[in-house]
Structure formats: C-alpha cells, structure tokens
C-alpha cells in the first residue's frame, strides 16, 4: 500500500519555496526578506517535522523570484535553507544559500561601544569565516561570532 502524502502547505503554480528554515527563525526570515511588506500571496508553515532541526518552517511566495543576493541574506539565520523555484507547479531549479561576503543591515554588532549601537546607523560586516561564522564590523573592527550574533 502506497504511503499517503499530504501537503502541509498548499502548492503554488509559480514562485519560490524556501524550505528547511529553523522553526524559531521563520519570522526573522520573513523580516530579512521584507515579506512582511510584500503584496504577493504568501503561505507559510512552521513546526513541521524535520530530520535536521526537529522542527522546521517553510515559506511559499507566489509569483516572486528573488535575486540570489537577496536570498543569501537569510543565510545568517537559516544556513541550510533550500530554495525551490516553481514554474507550472514543477520544481525547475533548486538552490542553496551561502553567507554573503558583505552583510549590511541584518546583524547587530556585539560590541556595546560600537558607534552602530549608539547612533542610528546601518550595520555593515564583512565575512571573516563562514564555517564558524565570524563577522568583522566595518566600523569598530571587532569580530562578532555566531555565539554572540543577534539579528536586527
């Protein structure tokens, strides 16, 4: 007897599916991609079963195809996210995210004495190490590691 398959989140005809988001980062991903201000049809599910995370989230954005640069912005919070490009209900392309070399306006500098934590300034980091996530602040030159990383 074949296993019965059910879609937890409804299928889309055209658009982008972002899968394998850690469940507790769903709303951060929505915010980073600006989906909270997007007029397209968006469906999401969270606390879905995942072998990697235990629980994962998924977002489907109809009729929207992101630039790689925009999608890579979510790599800080969802480094294992998978992106499926959908056309006519079929997956036509699969992508992974990679942490960008320059990270602007997403993360907070861990240094309380940094100017970015004291004035209204867009944060700006360069990637020092992608394996043990380490970001160098463009302003105070201090290194923020994964352990101290906070998303704005």
């Amino acid at each position, binding site marked *: 007897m074949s296993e019965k398959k059910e879609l937890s989140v409804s299928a889309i005809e055209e658009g982008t599916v972002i899968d394998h988001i850690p469940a507790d980062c769903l709303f951060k991903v929505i915010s980073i991609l600006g989906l909270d201000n997007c007029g397209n049809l968006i469906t999401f599910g969270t606390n879905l079963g995942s072998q990697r995370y235990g629980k994962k989230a998924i977002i489907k954005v109809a009729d929207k195809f992101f630039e790689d640069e925009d999608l890579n912005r979510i790599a800080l919070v969802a480094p294992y996210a998978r992106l499926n490009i959908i056309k006519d209900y079929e997956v036509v392309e699969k992508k992974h995210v990679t942490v960008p070399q320059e990270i602007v306006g997403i993360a907070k500098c861990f*240094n309380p*004495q*940094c*100017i*970015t934590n004291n*004035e*209204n300034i867009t944060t700006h980091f360069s990637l020092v190490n992608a394996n043990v996530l380490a970001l160098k602040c463009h*302003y105070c*030159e201090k290194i923020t590691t994964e352990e101290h990383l906070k998303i704005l």
Partner: protein
Amino acid sequence: MKNRSLVSINDFTKSEILKIVELAAQFEANPNQDLLKHKIVASLFFEPSTRTRLSFETAINRLGGRVVGFMDASSSSTTKGESLKDTIKMVSNYADLIVMRHPLEGSARYASEQSSVPIVNAGDGANQHPTQTLLDLYSIKKTQGTLENLNIFMVGDLKYGRTVHSLLQAMSHFNPVFNFISPEELRMPDEYKFWLDSMGIKYYEHSEFTDIISRADILYMTRVQRERFVDPIEYEKVKDVYILNNAMLDNTKDNLRILHPLPRVNEIDVDVDNNPKAYYFEQAENGVYARMAVMSSILGLV
C-alpha cells in the same frame, strides 16, 4: 594619500607609512612652514585628551594653519542631542580637514563616510589611534636607524591597549620579532596572535618581566590598570611585577630605547628618566612632526 581619511593604520600601505616617516624627519629639521596657510582644520574632541589635542594643534600652528573646534562634547551640540552625522556634515562645510577624537569605537570610520573633507582619527574609543602609531614608528626609525628586523618587547596591558595592537599591525611590514610580557589576564588577544601566525611573524609570550629584555631593541611599556582586573587580589599580585626601574636596564643593549604612549603612572620608575635609553618624552615630541606629515600629505601639500 591626498584627500583620503586616516581612520586606521591599516589604511596606509608600507610605502605610505615610510613616506610619512620620511616627511616627519623633514618637518623636524624644518618645523616652521606655511604649508597650511589659508587652511582651516577642525579639531573635534568629543572627549578630553589634552596631550593628543595639543600635539595636533601645535602641528597645525607650526604649519601656519588655523584651528576651530571644541575640547570636549559638553561644549558641542551633542549635548542638545545632535547626531555625529549632523555634526560632521556641518563641520565639513566649514573646514578643510577634520581631526576627531570620539569615545565610541568605529566613530571615525562612520565620520569619514559622512564628511566631504578628510578625517584624521585622533582616537576612537579602544579601537584605533593611527597617528600615535605613526609617531611610534618615527621614534623607532629615529632611534634604531631602521624599522627592519627589530626585536620589539611589549609590556603591560596587551589585551586592551590599542597602541600595542596598532603598532603590532604596522610593524608587521618590517619583519620584527615580538616578545609580549603581560599578566595572564591581560595577554595579547588571540585574534592578533592568529594574525601574526598567518603572516609568519615570530612572537613569544612571557608573564614575568625579567632579564629577557637584554635582547630588546625597543621596550614598549604600557600601563597595567587596576580596573582591568576582575579580581582585585590578582591586581595586587602583579602590580609591582611590571614596573621598570633603572637597575633592570644594566645588561640591556646600547641601542635599546624605552617607549611609552603616556601618560605614565608608576610603570616606569622616575629613576629611569635620566637613563639615555629613556625615550618617552622625545617620543611625544615626535608626535608633532608625524602629525604635520599626516595632515600635509592628506591635504596634498607635500
């Protein structure tokens, strides 16, 4: 260098550093010139630093320039809530160059992005103080005749001391060997040691301040501050270990010179002051010539 800000010592290449050192020597030989005549330099000190401010203002005056500005944030519109961006945008309409001291780290980089004229960083919190490094390099070149292949000992607070971090980065162009002498709690941070490893530069760490200084060409002293210690008992244990006195210099090399960014508290005994190897007051004087070199280069006047 023309029209470029000087925020971090890493903004200058080896050849640019050498150019500043060479120019500083020329200014020392001929310290009163009119290169900055008709130029206005804004001296914005958001926190007091009398020594650095006077050094810059002396350099500007010796070059015939005029100075506007303030000595601490309480006499600026910061007290009314004005942002750094607005202050810099306004002042860059008035002056040809801005010298800025600010307590927050990264403020100088940010100011350089907002300003329409070059910024010279006169210290941004614990981050960078590049003209201090350039005057240190000029002092080393003057006393040793070269910057290459020197044995440099750094003593004291190597964890928080921005002057030692910047000097370490600048000297990396010149094949040095470093010896770091500090209490356990104030050791050189790993990020700098990893960086030295990646550059293939040798360094050794010590916790005792002993006769190993007999190998030194430069002894760079810094303050060990009580407030840096989590446990005051730990401070009491080490506070006298890192004090240099005249007797300790008996078996040192003839070319050894003792540097210190000043102010000194008690880490160099006053009995060292008359030793010909003591160089910290001359080092401070060298700051005027190094700053003359920096400002005239940035303004494209030399």
